[in-house]
């Protein structure tokens, strides 16, 4: 009897701990709500859409460590004229009016305490597709984090492509 209750308690404790761990792992919101309901699908995949390349907007991906969210000026470049009546575009225009950047929310990132210094540049040089690490963003309406970019995930890829798994490659 006594042992039974004891074991029950233990099990509960374990479950709770695991739960906490999982929660902490998935601390980042899956698909954060953006200030403007920007629809990637419309810009990338949609037949009658502009069918843009990723780099059309994320232009610095091959220059900088960040792929960089496009400047509102880039957006307005088209939307000065196109779809000006759409509500979302008007939101955009409003931002542009106020000379502000929309407070876009990140979908993929590393916490600072991870001490990760990721740079897009070499990965682009290596000819990686954007979707390998970001999922089929082009087919999403609101961007959702599809790939769980854990360290193990990085390392596996590095191993399979026989890239160095030296800690100093990413951590400093």
């Amino acid at each position, binding site marked *: 009897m*006594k*042992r039974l209750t004891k074991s029950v308690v233990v099990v509960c404790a374990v479950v709770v701990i695991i739960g906490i761990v999982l929660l902490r792992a998935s601390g980042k919101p899956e698909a954060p709500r953006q200030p403007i309901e920007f629809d990637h699908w419309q810009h990338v995949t949609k037949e009658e859409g502009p069918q843009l390349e990723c780099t059309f907007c994320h232009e610095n991906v091959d220059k900088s460590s960040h792929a960089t969210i496009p400047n509102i000026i880039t957006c307005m470049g088209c939307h000065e004229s196109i779809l000006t009546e759409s509500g979302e575009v008007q939101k955009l225009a409003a931002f542009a009016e106020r000379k502000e950047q929309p407070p876009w929310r990140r979908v993929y990132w590393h916490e600072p305490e991870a001490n990760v210094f990721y740079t897009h540049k070499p990965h682009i040089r290596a000819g990686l597709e954007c979707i390998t690490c970001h999922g089929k963003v082009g087919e999403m309406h609101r961007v959702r984090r599809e790939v769980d970019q*854990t*360290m*193990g995930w990085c*390392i*596996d890829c590095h191993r399979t492509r026989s890239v160095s*798994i030296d800690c100093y490659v990413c951590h400093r």
Partner: protein
Amino acid sequence: MLELEWIASKHAGRVRSQDARAPKYTMADKRPSDSKINSDLLAPVNHPGWGWYATVVVSGLVVLAAVGALGYQFTLGLGVWGINRPVFWALDITNFVFWIGISHAGTLISAILRVTGAEWRRPVTRCAEAITVFALMIGAMFPIIHLGRPWFFYWLVPYPNERGLWPNFRSPLAWDFFAINTYLLGSIIYLYLPLIPDLALLRDKSRGALRRIYGVFSLGWRGTQLQWDRLERAVRVMAVVIIPVAVSVHTIVSWDFAMTIRPMWHSTMFGPYFVAGAIFSGIAALILAMAIIRRVFHLEEYLRPIHFNNLGLLLLTMSLIWFYFTFGEYLTSWYGNEPEEMAVFNSKISGPYAPLFWGTVVCCFAIPAPMLAIKRFRTIKGTMIASALVVIGMWFERFLIIVPTLTHPRFTFNWGSYKPTWVELTLTAGTFGYFVLLYAIFTRLFPIIAVWEYKEGLPLGEHGEPTIVGTPDVEYESA
């Protein structure tokens, strides 16, 4: 009746031979009644007395204080300690080494005594083994406490992880991890095995829930001769295995230092030196524990001067061995006369650490050795005083092995100094409090002297007549 008399007389010879086996260390020729033995040895368990409660309360408070200090340290960081650059280790590792050392009291000593079949061990072994387990638990805490990020201590454990990382088995700390855990597990088992029959005894002497709990842990012990035989064999095997483990543990602890290239750490004899020191301090701790138990629980008849005398002699031996090692260690440094070594050497012999050093020599050798050598002083009180000195001395010896080397790096520009903070001191006090607490609780739950082992050593003295129970027809059968 007559028949039984006849049987008895018929086998008297063999019985007498068994009598001859009876050792003289136990209480005289006359065997006390089992009920007396039980009531005496189980007294601490049944009615401990106010002294016991006082001890628990006091030591409990000390532990609480230490826990508070620990929380403070975890929230703010190791900066609350006195450690600095270059003294990255200090009281934390001192306590670690010290307690691991103390832990050599039991298992090793009792194992040696068991293997060598020293009869007088009987009332001693369990005190000793209990010391081992608790000291080890305390010592093993420090490698975790002293981490900069203690919440990641499990990274030392080899477990398959998503990050594809693995511990470094080349590190002496990894060796520590394996050695200490093995020793801890081994010691617990080694303490537990001889405890089983006594657990059964407690089971049978207690009622209700307590009976059930004791029942569970006594594994359904019945006391058949088969069980006795197997138990004793198992214990003997354990004893044989545990001795090398015990030796390896403190050797590896010493290697934490010896493997480095620091002056006066990088020494080949550190292994035996530490082991000797460990046994030394262990015996001292054992004597203290026994003396206190004897007084508190009125076990004067069981823990007798002879035990203290013998342990005292052991202590004397170890004291001499310790001195021999220390002398050798320091002589080689001094004779080699390398500047880096001499920097450390001088700081101990004549420098800021001289008082501690010479204090240590006095506590561990100058006073105890002659005292124990003279029979007149090898009394209970005498050995107690000597042991107290030795325990204190050995703590400082550990401190002296660690800190002076760290304060004197090879480049004089980086020499440092060390002053402990209240946090470290509280933690240190806490370890002693914790030890006392655990030990007190142990005595409350289990007989601190192994009842069956004690009885085993008694002469089969004669008294009382057989009372026949059971079905009479059997009686008539055999008649």
